[in-house]
């Protein structure tokens, strides 16, 4: 009987002690933000949306090999000798024409492994995080601007249909 009342007393007492701490926190500054109207300033290294500055891309394909989920698709073709030489921002000569540089952002796992080996630092992760879209295919970002110059190879002839 004595224990019963002691338990009740202790419960109420310890809860009151906890309430005291909670009460004290009532007068501290709030640590939350009213998100859509106010936003946190993200640090410089934030890894959100991928961006490729295609003018500097030399088409080496190291990002494609580094990606663990294979979400970067790249096609290149050799620039002809007669074409005027072009250079990336850091002076690297661009010998390949990047005709396809697609990143499927819905597959990306934001691991940053693709940006590290990039020799011209043209592939970066930007701190932009609000890029929701309505349709899934809108997550396929197409960065390449050049059209393929060489005539496309003829498609392999389809197999003859099986006789029924």
């Amino acid at each position, binding site marked *: 009987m004595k224990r019963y009342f002691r*338990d009740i007393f*202790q*419960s109420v*007492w*310890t*809860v009151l*002690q*906890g309430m005291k*701490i*909670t009460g004290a926190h009532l007068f501290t500054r709030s*640590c939350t933000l009213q998100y859509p109207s106010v936003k946190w300033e*993200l*640090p410089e*290294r*934030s*890894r959100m949306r991928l961006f490729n500055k295609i003018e500097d891309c030399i088409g080496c394909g190291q990002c494609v090999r*580094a*990606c*663990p989920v294979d979400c970067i698709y790249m096609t290149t073709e050799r620039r002809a000798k007669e074409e005027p030489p072009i250079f990336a921002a850091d002076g690297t000569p661009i010998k390949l024409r990047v005709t396809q540089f697609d990143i499927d952002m819905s597959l990306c*796992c*934001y*691991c*940053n*492994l693709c940006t*590290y080996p990039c020799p011209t630092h043209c592939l970066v*992760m930007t701190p932009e995080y609000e890029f929701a879209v309505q349709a899934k295919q809108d997550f396929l970002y197409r960065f390449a601007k050049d059209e393929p110059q060489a005539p496309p190879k003829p498609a392999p002839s389809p197999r003859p249909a099986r006789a029924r």
Partner: protein
Amino acid sequence: MQVEAYAGEEMVLNMGPQHPSTHGVLRLELETDGEIVRKVIPHIGYLHRCFEKHAENIDYPGVIPFCDRMDYIASMNNSLGYALAVEKLMGLEVNERVKTLRVLMAELNRVASHLLSIGTYAMDIGSFTPFLHCFREREKVLDLFEWLCGARLLYNYNWVGGVSHDIPEGFEAKTREFVTQFEPVIAELDKLLSYNKIFLERTADVGIISEEQALSHNVTGPNLRGSGIGWDLRKEEPYCGYETYDFEVPVGLGEHGPLGSCWDRYYVRVREMEQSLGLIRQALERLPEGDVHEHIPRRVRPAKSEVYDRTETPRGELGYYLVSDGGLIPFRVKVKSPCFTVLSLLPAIAKGGMVADIIAIIGSIDIVMGEIDR
């Protein structure tokens, strides 16, 4: 009909897979006799993501993002174990700065992980306030990580032969600030939750893991130390220079109720956070100069060999067994998960208890399903 006709009739109750207090997608099949649990059968595999098979198809550095996703609450510790295993496989030695940074980040993440574990445990038991306090503090650690490497949860920070980023300017001061302001929070948490009578009644006499049980089921980490066995890999098999740091291994003392209860396991975590803060301070003080990218190999191509390496994560011993056939991709990656072994003990310790005690036990063993199912 007689009331006796119902006596002893057992009901099968499915708890989960989408139950708020099973910490992920764990399904428990309970055989209940009224309120008493006669048998517990855990069903796992709802979060299976083929980690090990994945790892056999990508190059060594590419496995690290997947390691992060196993125990997503303590990513730094997970990738650390893998990076150390690959380095051991290659015979690679990293410089002191990398080692110190790894210790610093592992301990910061240990604090964050324990905060989450304590907070959600309090919420399972029914007190909501400590959860908010813990998450407020955890947020500060995550902000530090975001500043450091740009990600808040899945860092991909520990690379083979180094770390991805050196610390930014002002990071040390900010971390010191966090440590200083966090110490009083632990005392506050003690007052708010640890010695709360209702919390004690719910946890102090429940889910007892005896020493023999813990050893026979290969329970590790805070769960083992809660049973009074002071085994910590950071002391027993030091890695990353842990032997040069001064810290204690807190063990359960059975202050309230028998040794090895849910409360003991909970309280070991609280005291481990204090030790982690000490480790963070020491790491910040000694931080040597150096280049963090110095030893990162251009191609990770270990010779044909195999290695088993284990580290102490916030949940216990995490082991990686790597087999290399001399190529660019691992031949086999096997993970020994600490949560899996402790979950195997659940049927034994939950038997004969109440249904509400199951919640208390699952919260106290602190499992992450991502690591169990992989």
